[in-house]
Structures are given as structure tokens and as C-alpha cells.
């Protein structure tokens, strides 16, 4: 843990060398997700509700997904740089160090510039919590926190899968974006609006619905089933295949030799 903060502080100092660009990036991130928020807002101005969910209820969902995504990005986005790490042979250096590879990769890059997105999520949460008309008892608060934590870890695992693909393709694979960026974009609405097929896929294959949809039903009082409170924990199971896939890729790793 101390090592992580050491890495982080080095990162921070190097980012600060390009101050203007850094603040532009934060601002740009904020505006991008603000655009996404505006499109949700204007859809509800026109339609009022979707599949029985109201605007402020949907916002809770939006905030959890956006928050989990941006926190995962800040902490784990080192994986995004992984294709170039393999490409330029930096990964070979990592392998010879006496620390866990996964740790070194995600600690190698602290994406603070993603704070713009996180700020947005915090603002939406602050608005949605009173506006959603939910009676906030301790169990609902706990569920919301659990949704947020498990969501962060699940997005982190998706970044790990993304990086693992690189072992085979050397270049980054744009296809994973549909689950990472797409997850953020389309996870803004409760996943049930996309129909049963998508919901099932998002429950059993990429367990995004486990932290986004089912506990959300409990929080907004659509169901009284206490079981839904702990459903987010199931999304953590995704770590197992993600990690196995990583090990599998690591075994097949051949250095690019540069």
C-alpha cells in the first residue's frame, strides 16, 4: 500500500508538468459526461418516464455507474496503457521485478485527469439522493455503497480482461470498449429497458446488472426482497474468470523483443 502511494505521488508530479493540458483534460471529461447527462435529461423532458422508472430514479442509477466507472478509471487505468507497455518492451522489465505484475501495472498510471467525470458523478448523486423520493434508511444507504464498490471492482476487472487480450493481439482491442465505455454509457439507464436478452447477458456473462439493476430495484422500493441487497457481491465473481484469463495470457506471453 505504501508502495502504491509512492507510485501515485510520482505520477502526480509528472502530470503537473503539463498543467494547461491537465486542466483541459479534466474540463473536457466533465463536459463529455455532462453532455451524456444532458441527453438523459432531455429524453425525460420529452417522455417523462421509461419502463416505469422516473427521471430521478434513473439518475441514481446513472450516478452509481458513472461514479464506479470513473473511480475504476482513476485507480486501474494503467491497464489502458498496457498495449504500449507490451509494444515497447516495458512489460519485460516489470516481469523481472519481485512484485506482483498486476499491481505494478495498475500502479504505473494514476489517471487523475478522470476526476472531471468523478466530480460529475458526485454532483448527480447529491442531486438524486434527495430527489429520488427514497426513504433513506440504513439498509438502503448500505446497498448504495455496496453497489458503488462492487461496480468499481467489476469495471477494474473489465480493464484487466482488456489488458489480457493484448497478450494475443499486441494492439489494444477496440471491441472491449463496448463493455467498458459502453457499460458506462448504456448503464446510465436501468439495464432492464434494453429487454430480457440484454438483461440476462448482463447478469450471467458480464455481471453488470448485479451491481446496477437488482440492488437498484431494492433501493427505489420496487421490491422488498432483502436478498437483492447482497446481489452486488455476485458481480465480484467476475474476478475469477478475469484473473484466470490473465494467467492464461501471461503463460502465452512472448516478448516483442524491442
Amino acid at each position, binding site marked *: 500500500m505504501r508502495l502504491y502511494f509512492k507510485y501515485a505521488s510520482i505520477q502526480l508530479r509528472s502530470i503537473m508538468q503539463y498543467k494547461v493540458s491537465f486542466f483541459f483534460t479534466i474540463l473536457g471529461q466533465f463536459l463529455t459526461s455532462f453532455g451524456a447527462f444532458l*441527453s438523459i435529461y432531455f429524453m425525460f423532458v420529452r*417522455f417523462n418516464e421509461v419502463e416505469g422508472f422516473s427521471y430521478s430514479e434513473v439518475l441514481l442509477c446513472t450516478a452509481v455507474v458513472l461514479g464506479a466507472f470513473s473511480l475504476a478509471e482513476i485507480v486501474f487505468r494503467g491497464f489502458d496503457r498496457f498495449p504500449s507497455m507490451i509494444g515497447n518492451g516495458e512489460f519485460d522489465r516489470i516481469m523481472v521485478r519481485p512484485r506482483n505484475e498486476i499491481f505494478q501495472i495498475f500502479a504505473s498510471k494514476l489517471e487523475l485527469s478522470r476526476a472531471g467525470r468523478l466530480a460529475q458523478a458526485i454532483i448527480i448523486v447529491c442531486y438524486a439522493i434527495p430527489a429520488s423520493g427514497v426513504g433513506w434508511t440504513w439498509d438502503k444507504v448500505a446497498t448504495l455503497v455496496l453497489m458503488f464498490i462492487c461496480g468499481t471492482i467489476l469495471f477494474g476487472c473489465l480493464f484487466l480482461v482488456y489488458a489480457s487480450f493484448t497478450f494475443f493481439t499486441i494492439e489494444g482491442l477496440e471491441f472491449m*470498449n463496448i463493455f467498458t465505455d459502453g457499460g458506462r454509457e448504456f448503464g446510465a439507464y436501468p439495464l432492464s429497458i434494453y429487454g430480457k436478452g440484454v438483461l440476462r447477458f448482463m447478469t450471467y456473462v458480464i455481471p453488470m446488472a448485479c451491481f446496477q439493476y437488482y440492488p437498484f430495484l431494492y433501493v427505489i422500493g420496487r421490491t422488498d426482497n432483502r436478498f437483492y441487497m447482497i446481489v452486488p457481491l455476485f458481480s465480484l465473481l467476475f474476478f475469477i474468470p478475469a484473473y484466470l484469463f490473465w494467467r492464461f495470457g501471461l503463460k502465452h506471453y512472448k516478448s516483442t523483443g524491442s
Partner: protein
Amino acid sequence: MKKYLTFFTIRFTTRLQYRAAAAAGMATQFAWGFMNILMFSAFYRANPAAFPMGFDQLASYIWLRQALLALLSSWSLDSETLEMVSSGNIGYELCRPVDLYNMWFVKDVATRIAAVTLRCIPIFAVSFFLPKPYNLSLPPNAGTLLLFLLSMVLGFCVIVAYSMLVYIATFYTYSPLGVRWIAISLTEFLSGSLLPLNFLPDGIRRVLELLPFSSMQNVPLRVYSGDIAGQAALWHILLQLFWLAVLVALGQVWMKNALKRVVVQGG
């Protein structure tokens, strides 16, 4: 003219090599369009009367956007040109006896056309045969198709002229990251790529349609399905011409100024 054609051919054939990336991109674009249509259809079920255009028109809008994404999106910038200043390669570029603005313009055009050539046909083919009303339908008549092609070419040129401003900005900021994010964030919402602009309340929509961003995606995609037709279409096309002239002039003046103070980074 001939030298620009050569630049075009070189860049075009290089970019055609990235076939795996194109396949992955295509799958993503297809899945993305699919999710988008499911989302709109959920809203359509909630209140069909509030829909500002026919659902088949919306589906055409989305599929056309997904197929032509590389042409029309602000984020498909050429990373080589973006890093030209920070890597110091700008030094070589300046040695060439060609106008830098025109050369970069041609390169950007070639990169985008190459990307779209690889991706658009499968997406067109699949989306065309989807069940109604989720499919890409043909434009209502031949006149509309011609209008669409005209406004599509103009919209494409507007987005390239806009990208040129991003490239030029890197003369001042060195690191391309920040400018790139700002440029993307402005266009995503304002050009109607998140939400077709006619989904917005009337007052806001009228203002946004005057901006250059609307010329990029909103106009050509809506002309295609006949949502913007007749006199309105002509008016929008004139506006596209106007913005194209403004953006190109702005870019050329700005480039001239930037080149006066360019620092070639070593290393």
C-alpha cells in the same frame, strides 16, 4: 494538386493495412448501434406520440451514423499529426515544399476515408436486412439521396476543417490530450451524435442548429431519412457551406500565426 493526390494515396493505402482494428471497430460500432436502438425503443414504448420523427427514420439515423462513424466523429483524429509538435517531427513537415494546412487536411481526409471504407459496407449490409422498423431503410426518393450526398460531403469537410483547428492548437499546448478532450466534448452533444437534435426542446434546438456542430452530423443524417426536406434542407446546406468557409479561413489564419512561433522539440 498532384502532390496532394500522392499524399492521399500513401496515407490511404497505409491505413488500409489496419484490418484487425477495423474488424474489432466494426463489431463495436454494430453493438453500439444495437444498444442505442433498444434504448430509443424503450422510450418509444413509453410514449410513441412524443417521438419527434418516425421510428424507422430514427433507426436509419443511428445505423447511418454507426456505419459512417469514422467520417463523422470528432474523435477519429490522426494520432500521428496530433503528436507532430510534441514529438518534434514538425521539423520534417516544415521542410516539405507544400502548404502545411492543405497537406494535413488531405491526410485527415485520407485517414477517415480509409477507415470508413473498411467498416461501412458490412454495417450497411447487416443493418439493411434487419426486421422493420429497426433497419436502415432507403431514402424516400432519388432527390433526397442526391441532397444527402451533397450535405454529407459538406458535413465531412466541416468536420475535417474542425479537426484542423485541434491539430493547430497543439502548437500552443504541446500535449494533445487536453485540446482533444475539449474538442470531443463540444461536438458529442452539440452535433447530435448522442441524441438527434430534434429530440431537444424547440427553442434550444433552433439555436443549436445554427452552430457549426449541427452541420457535422445532424444535417446530413436527417436529410437522408427525409426528416429535413425541401426548403429547410437547402437552408441547412447553405449554412453548412457558410461554416465550412469560416472554419477553413480561421484555420489558415491561425496556422500562419502558429508557424511564426513554432518551437521544434528535440529528442
